[in-house]
């Protein structure tokens, strides 16, 4: 019976699992034991998760969001033939507008393939870049990455090719490739999704980086908060070793590259590259002063590439299709695509990979569909906890590195967190400072002490007038906050202390009314006792 051997795709991505994908899979297998269930990554249409797909001659047909109790009615309908009679029918996956309107380059395979199947990976264009790289001289690989215009996707946007050139030119017998997979920014999940949905792409990118600079050892520094990604990466690495993709004889070339996953331990600061290196060495994650750059004195004192997951995962395609092809996407000095992540209070949250240049409004409205709560959207924070809060007037800004810098914000890792009109921006500003007190490594004073003083000053500004004295006194406190932020920006060793003021000052600039003692949510308004 053809229906019994149907192939159904049920994601094993964290978000899908967090909404019950495992139970759906178990229920389906239980009711139809002969069904072939493939545990793929997620397509990134997270508001439809668990979204399951059935393979049909016309292509994959999607249903979602599916709960375990829906399985019975799905099987009773024409689901296994990809029919449209069930209310959860979404049509051909590739034609869902949210997906069809994207430019999936780095995420082309994510959600399509079984993440740990090397056959799937090869069948969908995997390893072509590596095969090309194996035939090239190191300099030619670096040149290809330079041509692509790729800039670091972790947030700092440093040109990847130039970093690689520095490591290539650094004379040493031992060099390292380190992948920064400590994706700690709230509102970001692109790294996780890629590692869970297409781990070989990251592995291939790291091997190519190794060939490019003469490094034979790589580490993926993964945050402990990602147990699913950890399991999938380890499975994929074991398979890649078995298949001679990793190890002493990469695809029969005689060249060597070994790779290990190392777990972080719940320290946000370890996403900062020098702190990450300290942690990998087995130390406290204290930030190092730069220079020397990690490219010259990195892991265990050796020249080291430290790149974000998406930067490294962009490399196989750049090698396979050429740097020219990649740089045709994008605008100005922001070349290629960026996987934007729609998060927070948003109706259609998920991953949207687009060339640079789209407006924020397009993302929030056309893709995001407004807030999840249905209330008006009031603010968005872009680029993680160290990113600016932006009001509606600025949502027309095109999403590219330079345009965002011009408005005092940053695209960062592409994470976008939406808030509805119940948000109080002085509380958000206070949280930014509080977060810095919790996560500062403590090495430099502006960050360690400045953040504590920041919380106190914001409390004085937003508390009632008896506490902060006259209006004049309040003005003085605001001035003090601005000066404090200035000190943190210019006096901190790294981006933690240096960028914590960005959400604070942007909140103060764009939403000053929220800092008044009588603003909803502030202590005076709640009648809290300050005695």
């Amino acid at each position, binding site marked *: 019976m053809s229906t019994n051997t149907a192939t159904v795709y049920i994601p094993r991505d*964290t*978000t899908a*699992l*967090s*909404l019950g994908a495992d139970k759906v899979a178990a229920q389906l297998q239980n009711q139809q034991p002969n069904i072939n269930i493939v545990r793929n990554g997620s397509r990134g249409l*997270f*508001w439809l998760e668990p979204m399951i797909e059935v393979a049909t001659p016309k292509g994959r047909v999607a249903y979602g969001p599916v709960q375990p109790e829906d399985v019975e009615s799905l099987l009773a309908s024409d689901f296994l033939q990809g029919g449209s009679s069930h209310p959860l029918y979404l049509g051909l996956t590739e034609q869902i507008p949210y997906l069809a309107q994207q430019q999936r380059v780095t995420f082309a395979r994510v959600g399509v393939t079984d993440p740990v199947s090397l056959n799937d990976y090869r069948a969908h264009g995997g390893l072509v870049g590596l095969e090309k790289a194996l035939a090239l001289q190191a300099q030619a690989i670096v040149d290809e990455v330079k041509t692509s215009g790729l800039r670091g996707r972790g947030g700092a946007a440093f040109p990847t090719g130039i970093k690689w050139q520095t490591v290539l030119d650094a004379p040493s017998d031992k060099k390292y490739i380190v992948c920064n997979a400590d*994706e*700690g*920014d*709230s*509102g*970001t*999940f692109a*790294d*996780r999704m890629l590692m869970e949905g297409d781990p070989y792409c990251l592995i291939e990118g790291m091997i190519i980086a190794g060939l490019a600079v003469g490094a034979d*050892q790589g580490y993926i520094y993964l945050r*402990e*908060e*990602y*147990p*699913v990604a950890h399991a999938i990466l380890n499975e994929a690495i074991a398979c890649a070793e078995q298949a001679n993709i990793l190890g002493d004889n990469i695809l029969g070339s005689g060249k060597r590259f070994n790779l*290990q996953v*190392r*777990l*972080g*331990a*719940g*320290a*946000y600061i370890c996403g900062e590259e020098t702190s990450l290196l300290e*942690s*990998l*060495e*087995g*130390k*406290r*994650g204290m930030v190092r002063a730069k220079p020397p750059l990690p490219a010259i004195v990195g892991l*265990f004192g050796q020249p080291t590439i430290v790149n974000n997951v998406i930067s490294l995962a962009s490399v196989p395609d750049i090698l396979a299709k050429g740097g020219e092809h990649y740089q045709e996407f994008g605008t100005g000095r922001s070349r290629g695509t960026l996987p934007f*992540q*729609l*998060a*927070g*209070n*948003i109706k259609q*949250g*998920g*991953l949207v990979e687009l060339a640079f240049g789209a407006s924020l409004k397009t993302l929030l409205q056309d893709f995001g569909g407004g807030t*999840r709560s249905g209330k008006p959207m009031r603010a968005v*924070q872009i680029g993680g*906890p160290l990113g600016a809060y932006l009001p509606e007037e600025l949502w027309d800004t095109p999403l590219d590195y330079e345009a965002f810098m011009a408005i005092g914000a940053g695209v960062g890792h592409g*994470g976008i*967190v*939406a808030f*509805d009109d119940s*948000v109080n921006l002085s509380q*958000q500003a206070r*949280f930014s400072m509080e*977060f810095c007190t*919790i996560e500062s*490594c403590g090495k430099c004073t502006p960050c360690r002490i400045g953040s504590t003083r920041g919380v106190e000053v914001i409390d004085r500004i937003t508390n009632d007038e008896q506490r902060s004295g006259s209006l004049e006194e309040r003005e003085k406190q605001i001035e003090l906050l601005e000066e404090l932020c200035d000190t943190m920006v210019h006096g901190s060793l790294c981006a933690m202390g240096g960028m914590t003021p960005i959400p604070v000052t942007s909140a103060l600039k764009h939403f000053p009314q929220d800092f008044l003692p009588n603003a909803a949510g502030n202590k005076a308004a709640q009648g809290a006792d300050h005695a």
Partner: protein
Amino acid sequence: MTTTADSSTLAATLNSIIAEHQGLEGPLLPILHATQKALGYIPSEAVPVIAQQLQLTKAEVHGVISFYHFFRSHPAGNNTIQICRAESCQSMGSRELEANIKQRLKTDYHQTTADGEITLEPVYCLGNCACSPAIRVNDDIHGRVTMDKFEHILDELLTVAVELK
């Protein structure tokens, strides 16, 4: 998981963990992870043993353990629940959720419920930001958590725990 290790089993466990990881570059974090996985926490008696075998000072090992939020020096409950406190979850009501969960469990962050079942911890992002608010129960992440859903999760968790005994 929260075995109170007597000194000989502790030594045996530690020795095998250290032997397994000693060949790695930068072995300290992998050793601490493995120790916490085996024992549920990193007992203070483990510090001098690890220090000696890695040729570090006790202060260095202690310094690393105390730097990272994830490592614990005292036993935890049978289960650990982490509530995401980061911005995306805040935008979907996590401040209220965390207050309600604390009240429901009658415990605060970094503490364990009176019955020893649940240790409550804050976490800053679980990478599930499109389906906020999120919590993590041991190694399972849950999205779009409401108090109703939380009760359900709790129910399942504690029922399973009883069956295991």
